[in-house]
């Protein structure tokens, strides 16, 4: 599993996937979203994830519907 930011450039993700699949022979990859991960700790389905990081601060509402 790899962790990516929501607005990470598409070229970057494609490049990472290419390297993993074609050169490192990885069978499966999951690109998880950095902003929504804290919500899994709370065990809920709906919440407002506020991430106060060093490089950026992001706010992402997550809802199960």
């Amino acid at each position, binding site marked *: 599993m790899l962790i990516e930011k929501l607005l990470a450039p*598409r070229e970057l993700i494609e490049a990472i*996937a290419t390297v993993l699949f074609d050169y490192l022979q990885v069978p499966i990859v999951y690109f998880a979203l950095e902003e*929504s991960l*804290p919500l899994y700790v709370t065990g809920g389905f709906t919440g407002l994830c506020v991430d*106060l*990081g060093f490089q950026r601060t992001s706010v992402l509402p997550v809802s199960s519907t």
Partner: protein
Amino acid sequence: MLAASFSESASGHSVLQALAQDLGGTLALPALEDLVARLALIPYGELAVECADPAQLEVLQRKKYRCRPLGSSTDVQLSFLHRISPAKVLFGDVEADEDNIAATVLNSILRCEMVLRRVLISTLVVSGGLCMLPGLLERLTEEMARLLDLEQYASLRPLKAHINVVETEFSRNLLVWTGGSVFGALPALDRFALTKEDFAHGGVPDRIGENYLFASRSSVQEIHSSKDRSLDRLKDSLLAS
């Protein structure tokens, strides 16, 4: 996931930049980080009221703090204003169009559907390294309650009593990691992960919408077809009865 309401605001880097400017720009980044980690604080409650009053700030200013930052051979003298400088950056003046975390959160909620707003404001999951600054969470909820009195957030005002930050057992600066390990332990992950064939077929799926959650395209189609099938079955059973 509601990516349309995603927004960004001032971060730890801007905190360090502001402090570097205050100190005359002579310190390296690791030294500044060390200073912030050791001395920075975010005023809230009574202290915030005192800091807003110039006369009382003068009294607080008299005390100087001397400390030697990481990797530096000389001491640095800091004043109280330096200690509370992160608060100025993170909770800027909304009317002057400065970055303000609380305003960012409220703007994000404003862009959500009415039904969701109450649930969202009562389940704030705050993570990240900046949470380690003492007083940040208290100030965040306080500032949100204060901003709700402004004209632009009038529609959110009834939610004032519901502002709540979710408490977890884990340290806030590691929430992304713990969340990642919880998520990685889910048994369903294999089904939704991107396989080599999927990638060769259509590259990485879009980040927005259903494709993001069910990362591989074949699993999305599978889910859709199973949904259709269950709908058909429902229709059949309804018609039969």
